[in-house]
């Protein structure tokens, strides 16, 4: 084994890769060579650290110094200061927005301090393309334990005892599900990993697959052993090329070491996996549609029961779990259900990974213990609202989830509390919104998504989402009546009650929750023809501020309807009757004197 005095971890997740980490890595190689350090300092490309917004990220060990937004131009100075002179390069450290303090270490940054990284424990620490690094972090120990010391029943009991619940959205107890598949009659059984991750803005599963693919493989191996399956599928969206590449490498390495394939670790247990690339339909994340898609059919959900545990892929008993669910398994087996039980709440055990986005200062991937108050995620990990604006709402659970308001900030983030507030845990999307967000507009945004992604099979979802969307459009233009709000609510409730699959059953959630927590805002649109957040264009008027206008006539010349009048060098005026709100004048004005109000 080679001995080196320092490791430089360069993030190779999708976020950092797109902000230029590949070039940074190459520059580091060049610079180390130039300085003759290439023998004593090793560069490791890791998976995602979660703090993508601050990328490209570079961490130097053994100190664990955390450098962010590192550019190619910074490399010579970084190498010289940190690796030659042993001094921390202050200017590349993270600055805590609140205190303006520079923080040298990973663990001391607010963003990381409140997190509990169990599932993500290897993400950002190891090179995901090297199985040795996974093994060095106790990887495949759980598999060896299971094959050596535990019966399939023991494994299921342990998972049941841990209280692990599915992370794909619905939160079904995982051990119970495994038990059903194990008991289902049949020789041939399948296990499936749901890596479709279709929620807009979510990237939890992608980061796990990119940063620690072996932990998912190990989880699936354990699950397969528990239910008696010899074949599995990972259904990953084709838009995740890096995750798929790393999965393929991981699979090949596991096969080479006898951890995948026939007679695993010299036992009778045989198991292998296929990777199926999905074409990126949100509905294909729904388990029955996903399996239809694997079978080569149109991805359309079917009625359950029968549940996959009894009749899944090609009619065989099948156990399907989400990426993050699988990623929890090895940790539980290795450390025991009791250890796992210390994280989370009574009914929601463990941690949950969220993709924290929107108007918070720190965005990125965060793993928190279940039951953490929403406020802590937003104000401590996320460090509060961007630009110190006012918090307005947080959307949890993606297009199937709900919008919670200020009043729910102290809500515990667990399955039960979220459900009772009309939202869902979902797969982990968390979008924070500030006072400049219009809730009618937010509901429109999510319905645009579900309208396009509905599979079209059942009436309420196919036709109903379209009509909800049209009603919202009317409201955003000040049309409709207050009675229409009740009608919208009734329609939303019917869709929820009658749709065939989870997509339709949850698509009304953004509408129902915004109606529940922000009804006054809807009323302002309809009754006062006013969008309080100043977002809905149809309710805004273009206005020339007389004090700022220089009378240059630029606006009047571009206006296609001749709505602007005024003498040269005198303030101009827009006739709101003629204005079609194209915005051409605003673009043409060089003095910023045209505003929307």
């Amino acid at each position, binding site marked *: 084994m080679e001995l080196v005095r320092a490791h430089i971890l360069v993030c190779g997740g999708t976020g950092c890769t797109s902000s230029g980490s590949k070039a940074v890595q190459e520059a580091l190689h060049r610079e180390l060579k130039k300085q003759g350090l290439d023998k004593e300092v090793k560069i490791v490309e890791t998976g995602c650290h979660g703090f993508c917004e601050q990328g490209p990220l570079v961490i130097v060990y053994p100190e664990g110094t955390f450098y962010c937004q590192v550019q190619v131009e910074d490399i010579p100075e970084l190498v010289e200061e940190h690796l030659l002179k042993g001094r921390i390069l202050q200017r590349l450290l993270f600055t805590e927005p609140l205190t303006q303090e520079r923080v040298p270490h990973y663990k001391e940054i607010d963003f990381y301090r409140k997190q509990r990284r169990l599932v993500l424990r290897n993400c950002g620490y190891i090179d995901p393309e090297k199985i040795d690094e996974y093994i060095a972090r106790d990887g495949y120990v759980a598999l060896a334990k299971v094959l050596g010391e535990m019966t399939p029943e023991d494994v299921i009991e342990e998972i049941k005892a841990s209280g692990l619940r599915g992370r794909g959205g619905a939160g079904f107890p995982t051990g119970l599900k495994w038990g059903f598949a194990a008991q289902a009659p049949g020789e041939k059984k399948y296990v499936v990993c749901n890596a479709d991750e279709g929620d807009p803005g979510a990237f939890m599963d992608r980061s796990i697959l990119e940063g620690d693919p072996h932990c998912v493989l190990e989880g699936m191996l354990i699950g397969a052993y528990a239910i008696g399956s010899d074949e599995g599928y990972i259904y990953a969206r084709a838009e995740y090329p890096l995750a798929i590449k790393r999965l393929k490498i991981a699979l090949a390495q596991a096969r080479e070491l006898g951890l995948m394939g026939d007679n695993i670790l010299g036992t009778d247990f045989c198991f292998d996996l296929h990777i199926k690339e999905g074409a990126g339909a949100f509905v294909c994340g729904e388990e029955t549609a996903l399996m239809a898609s694997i079978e080569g059919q149109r991805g359309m959900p079917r009625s359950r029961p029968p549940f996959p545990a009894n009749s899944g892929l090609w009619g065989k008993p099948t156990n399907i779990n989400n990426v993050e669910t699988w990623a929890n398994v090895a940790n539980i087996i290795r450390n025991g259900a009791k250890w796992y039980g210390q994280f989370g709440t009574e009914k929601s055990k463990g941690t949950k990974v969220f993709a924290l986005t929107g108007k918070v200062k720190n965005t990125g991937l965060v793993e928190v213990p279940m039951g953490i108050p929403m406020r802590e995620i937003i104000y401590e990990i996320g460090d509060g609202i961007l630009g110190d604006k006012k918090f307005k709402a947080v959307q949890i659970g993606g297009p199937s989830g709900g919008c919670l308001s200020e009043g729910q900030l102290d809500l515990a983030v667990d399955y039960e509390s979220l459900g009772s507030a009309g939202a869902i845990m979902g797969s982990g999307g968390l979008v924070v919104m500030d006072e400049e967000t219009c809730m009618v507009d937010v509901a429109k945004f999510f319905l645009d998504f579900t309208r396009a992604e509905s599979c079209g099979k059942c*009436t309420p979802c*196919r036709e109903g989402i379209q009509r909800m969307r049209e009603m919202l459009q009317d409201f955003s233009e000040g049309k409709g009546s207050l009675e229409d709000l009740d009608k919208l609510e009734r329609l939303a409730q019917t869709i929820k009650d009658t749709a065939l699959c989870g997509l339709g059953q949850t698509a009304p959630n953004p509408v129902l929750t915004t109606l529940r927590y922000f009804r006054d805002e809807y009323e302002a649109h309809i009754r006062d023809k006013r969008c309080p957040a100043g977002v809905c264009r149809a309710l805004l008027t273009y206005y020339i501020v007389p004090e700022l206008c220089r009378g240059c006539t630029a606006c009047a010349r571009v206006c296609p309807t001749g709505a602007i009048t005024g003498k040269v060098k005198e303030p101009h005026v827009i006739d709101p009757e003629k204005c079609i709100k194209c915005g051409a004048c605003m673009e043409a004005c060089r003095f910023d004197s045209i505003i929307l109000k």
Partner: protein
Amino acid sequence: MKMVNLTIDGCQVEVPLGSTVLEAAQKIGIEIPTLCYEKDLSLATACRMCVVEVEGNKKNLPAACAQPVMEGMIVHTNTPKVREARRMILELMVANHPLDCLTCEANGRCKLQQYCYEYGVKESSFTGERRRFTVDDGNPFIERDLEKCILCGLCVRVCDEVQGVAAIDYSDRGFDTKVTTFMDRGLADSPCVSCGQCVYLCPVGALTAKPSKGKGRDFEVEKVPTTCGYCGVGCQLALNVKKDKIVGVTNLPDNHNQGYLCVKGRFGYDFVDSPERLTTPLIKRDGEFVEASWDEALDLVAQKMAKVRDEHGPDAIAGLSSARTTNEENYLFQKFFRAVIGTNNIDHCARL
């Protein structure tokens, strides 16, 4: 067989384990509206008209056609909540539908129309976008007007599961979803064999039998049960007769052919009223065919056959029978040749 007891609308019913709520309700004569259900086909659970309330289920209104029965289950099929949901579903369908009932072929047998009547849906309270399609009328027998389609998927399933042709399937997603042929080329350019099973099952007026267009509504015709004359399978069918004229053919379910027909049985009836059709035997006299009675004609044939047999021996005669005849007729035919004529020269066009 393990039996399960449940209560539907206050009535006790016992059905085999594995039955659905819909089947249990049908057993005791409780009607639940359905648009996408057909007992011979796989379940689509797409229309959601059959939703019911199940006590203890706070989550949603399950579809009766798919909901398995459970011991002690208490089901309500006609609560205000259920009726409100069904009304809303009908309104959603109607919002995206040309209400052409005045001229629609399906008027009177249309299930959408029927349920709108039952639930008092006169028009939709939703306005907004409506799908626009051009009518696919390239196929000589079947016309498809997708604007009337409610996407129940019965046509897709019957074409695949009964006919084994799979000429049609869903395409596009969400509001744009439609049933179409490969690359949208139209039925005429698809593997469709014009069996018309889809036309028969379509609950609305989206699929029409072209030869029947404008010739009579369902309630105007008399349905005369008969046996198809085209082949020995002897499919049972219903001739739709209006004023002594056949204007169409529909299924007669619960027969050996389960009602299903092929293109000939379904659409090949125009010969019945053809002026070129022979109505009496003809005998050629002095180079001209002249009308004759059956006795005359049969005597002539018997006489000529006897003559050939007497002059040239029985093997000078051969018989070829038709696949359009029944087994019994074929049996008699060979018996006649072997026993009466005395030859084994007997064959059948379907001897493969």
